């Protein structure tokens, strides 16, 4: 892992030297992965990750065993968003079996479980349901058909005689389990075009049902990465440089080795690890380590303390005001059109770096036996975890087994595998089976943060008070170079020297710095509203703090920026905020509809309790459409959010209760950020460390939330993230209605 910086970045060689003898496989995986999607149905004899000889197994995802187990290998990670229940329900519907009767197994890292949209085994982008909806239905429908065909053949009946119910063949009221026919079904050609059910026939899809992981997660029996344990497992804690990218110059561990339980002290690529019998022993001993660091220059010189005279945003402001920029989108005459505007309205907004703060701190268990490596981890990218672990433990990729667990929160954080790299390196260096556990402080201070962002809008209006030109420029770090840096180790051919791998991982940075705009840098800033002329630009401003995907990615700031801007325009024109938006949503009918329904449900323009005000925001993301109306009051600079009405169009809601929960979840996660979230650096050191200085919303701050799901016959779209982007603006716009004060910076500071 290395530290890219805006200018004059220096190369830091990895201290670990791993060979990459397995490079050809790596290359072919990288190459093929980009184009090969998940097979809708595979032939029954395909080599798979988990071949069961005594089962009907059309592909790696589904097994109907002759001893009557129906196994579904969950290809996407369950981190709270509900794939465990949702994807299983999709299979259950077309297979005609109650979802409770399917055994759900977390898929290991394997090509068979690739996410077809990304060519990698990645869970993110709110795409699990929408990308698997049709393939899983076809898979299950075809499996049900071949079971019926086998039953017809075996029982000498016609196919029409063979009905199904809850995992059983039904003939004249007599039931026989599917498993009785799986061996025979295996001898038949696997069908390719079994008809899918009509919506009117759905038994499980679109219905509310308890989550399938509810009981295990309500009894402490669900297994997370941190719960992995076995005989001979030691615990490790790691001390890293307080400034990201720094490396060990010298260290003194003499005081550590005598500490209770301490087994070993090892140096790895980014710090010194203490290994002990128990975690608290390793953690306590860590404090006794003396380490001198080589600091990365650029980041160590950066402070973002918002008490600074330039409000800590100088780097971003300078970039924003410079002539430098890369165009990401243009429509009509773009910026030129501003010259013809009747009136131009301008505003600037800011959103800080944010930590993910998943409830389960990062952790990974690694056991190296000879050159066989076992990894246990809750990851959003198990295949990248595998490549990373192979590189850092210096073993061939095929020798790595990744055992997947539940994730105690992801929100994008567990797409990065820095903690897997550490665990693999510690296992290699120590020769011990270890579980690396991050403290909360480690977690808060070594994140891949939501990129800070500053944006300036210039909105040109025509003489009728309609938007003629929508122009926006955003300054901030880009995510892609850091993503590339994260994965490049695993993909590079082993004949390349490490220095060159480092150089290549830096190339992503130079490439994106000068040539490319990562779409997540500008997404959501310009798309939603009608305007004849549009332009969206980006300029990189980046002190070198690592950044990554944070729930809803670019939309996490653009939703706030764009919807605050829209409110400012309406206010300046003295127009109703809902009406003004609707005038510009002719080409965005689904978003318009959610807005109309939200206004109706919330009683927009109807009397509210004394001192209560409404704020509205609408935003489309991850192919879904969400409008929110927040009811707020401000008394003595104290903000209270009483209620949020949230209307979502996400196509068919596979499990409406889970959709509702995800909207609530996005709102509450977004409110934590809007009210409290801010990562501040002093000389490159993250100042926040735990929940006292990086607070999360607690139950007493959580508003009443009413969720309305638009009834839809369309295929499902995203729900894990789209609930988040509008909420900060809905509240800020409510605060403006209450106080006349326009809050353009996150998090909200009412007394500033």
């Amino acid at each position, binding site marked *: 892992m290395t530290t890219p910086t805006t200018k004059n970045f220096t190369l830091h060689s990895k201290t670990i030297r791993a060979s990459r003898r397995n490079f050809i496989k790596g290359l072919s995986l990288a190459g093929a992965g980009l184009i090969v999607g998940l097979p809708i149905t595979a032939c029954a004899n395909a080599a798979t990750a988990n071949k069961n000889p005594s089962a009907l197994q059309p592909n790696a995802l589904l097994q109907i065993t002759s001893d009557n187990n129906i196994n579904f290998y969950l290809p996407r990670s369950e981190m709270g968003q509900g794939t465990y229940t949702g994807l299983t329900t999709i299979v259950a519907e077309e297979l005609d079996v109650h979802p409770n009767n399917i055994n759900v197994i977390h898929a290991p890292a394997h090509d068979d479980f690739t996410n077809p949209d990304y060519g990698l085994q990645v869970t993110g982008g709110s795409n699990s349901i929408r990308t698997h909806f049709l393939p899983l239905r076809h898979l299950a429908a075809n499996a049900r058909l071949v079971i019926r065909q086998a039953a017809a053949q075996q029982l000498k009946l016609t196919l029409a005689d063979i009905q199904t119910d809850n995992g059983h063949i039904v003939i004249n009221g007599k039931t026989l389990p599917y498993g009785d026919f799986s061996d025979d079904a295996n001898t038949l050609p696997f069908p390719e075009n079994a008809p899918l059910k009509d919506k009117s026939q759905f038994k499980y899809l679109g219905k509310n049902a308890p989550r399938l992981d509810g009981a295990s997660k309500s009894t402490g029996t669900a297994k997370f990465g941190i719960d992995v*344990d076995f005989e001979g497992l030691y615990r490790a804690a790691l001390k890293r440089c307080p400034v990201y990218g720094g490396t060990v110059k010298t260290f003194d561990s003499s005081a550590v080795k005598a500490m209770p339980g301490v087994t070993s002290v090892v140096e790895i690529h980014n710090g010194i690890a203490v290994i002990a019998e128990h975690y608290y022993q390793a953690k306590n001993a860590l404090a006794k380590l003396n380490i001198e660091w080589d600091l990365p220059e650029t980041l160590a010189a950066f402070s973002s303390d918002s008490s600074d005279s330039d409000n800590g945003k100088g780097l971003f402001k300078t970039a924003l005001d410079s002539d430098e920029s890369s165009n990401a989108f243009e429509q009509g005459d773009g910026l030129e059109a501003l010259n013809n505007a009747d009136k131009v309205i301008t505003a600037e907004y800011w959103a800080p770096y944010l930590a993910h703060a998943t409830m389960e701190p990062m952790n990974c268990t690694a056991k190296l036996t000879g050159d066989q490596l076992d990894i246990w981890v809750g990851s959003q990218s198990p295949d990248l975890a595998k490549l990373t672990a192979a590189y850092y433990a210096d073993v061939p990729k095929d020798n790595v087994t990744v055992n997947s667990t539940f994730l105690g929160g992801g929100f994008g954080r567990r797409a990065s595998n820095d903690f897997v790299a550490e665990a693999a390196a510690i296992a290699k260096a120590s020769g011990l089976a270890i579980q690396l556990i991050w403290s909360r402080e480690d977690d808060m201070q070594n994140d891949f943060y939501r990129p800070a962002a500053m944006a300036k809008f210039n909105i040109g209006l025509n003489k009728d008070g309609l938007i003629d030109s929508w122009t926006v420029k955003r300054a901030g770090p880009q995510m892609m170079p850091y993503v590339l840096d994260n994965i490049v180790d695993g993909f590079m051919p082993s004949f390349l020297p490490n220095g060159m791998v480092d150089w290549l991982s830096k190339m992503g940075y130079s490439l994106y710095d000068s040539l490319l705009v990562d779409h997540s840098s500008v997404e959501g800033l310009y798309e939603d509203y009608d305007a004849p002329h549009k332009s969206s630009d980006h300029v990189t401003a980046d002190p070198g703090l690592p950044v990554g995907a944070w729930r809803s990615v670019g939309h996490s700031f653009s939703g706030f920026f764009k919807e605050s801007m829209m409110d400012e325009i309406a206010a300046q024109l003295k127009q109703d905020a809902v009406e003004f938006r609707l005038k510009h949503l002719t080409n965005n009918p689904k978003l318009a509809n959610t807005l109309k329904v939200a206004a109706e449900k919330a009683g927009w323009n109807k009397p509210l309790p004394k001192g209560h005000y409404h704020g509205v925001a609408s935003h489309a993301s991850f192919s879904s459409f969400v409008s929110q109306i927040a009811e707020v009051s401000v008394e003595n600079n104290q903000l209270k959010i009483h209620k949020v009405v949230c209307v979502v169009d996400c196509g068919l809601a596979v499990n409406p209760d889970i959709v509702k929960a995800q909207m609530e979840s996005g709102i509450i996660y977004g409110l934590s950020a809007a009210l409290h979230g801010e990562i501040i650096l002093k000389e490159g050191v993250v100042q926040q460390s735990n929940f006292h200085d990086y607070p999360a919303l607690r139950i007493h701050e959580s508003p009443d939330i009413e969720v309305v799901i638009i009834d839809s016959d369309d295929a499902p779209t995203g729900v894990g993230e789209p609930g988040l982007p509008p909420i900060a603006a809905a509240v800020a716009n409510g605060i403006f209605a209450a106080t006349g004060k326009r809050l353009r910076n996150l998090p909200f500071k009412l007394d500033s």
Partner: protein
Amino acid sequence: MISFELNGKTVQLDAAPDTPLLWAVRDHLKLKGSKFGCGMGLCGACSMLLDGESTRSCILPISAVQGRKITTIEGLGNPNMLSTLQSAWVEASVPQCGYCQSGQLISATALLSKNNNPSDKEIDNAMSGNICRCGTYPNIKKAIKQAATDMQKGNGRLQMVSHFDPLTQKEEV
């Protein structure tokens, strides 16, 4: 040697007296239901009942629990034998990622054991020490109210397991 009652069974621990209860239970006694979240008593993921009160076990040394009664999530029920609160939890699909939920259930159990008809404000007070990053708060409120209703009918139980042997992982009802 420190001894205390864990889920109805007396356990003896040969560990340093300043060992945090959370790690004694997770690492020494191998009960993994209680979670590590912050190590500072701020998030509530590690909550256990100490003589019936919801307590942050990550900052509680085992020397402080000598001779006292500790109940963890394993002492409330199991997937086949859910307590009234756990049933309400499952029915309302409260958990999302699930990591904080053991602590949430411990705090909710402590609340309902003293008050079987809590107001919104009382729920907020009892539960505000437990952070959930997934934002399951609306469903937590819903489930607590459902369980309170069940308790008022007199057919509820907050603890299905009277004895849980951490060594054998066997339960007695």
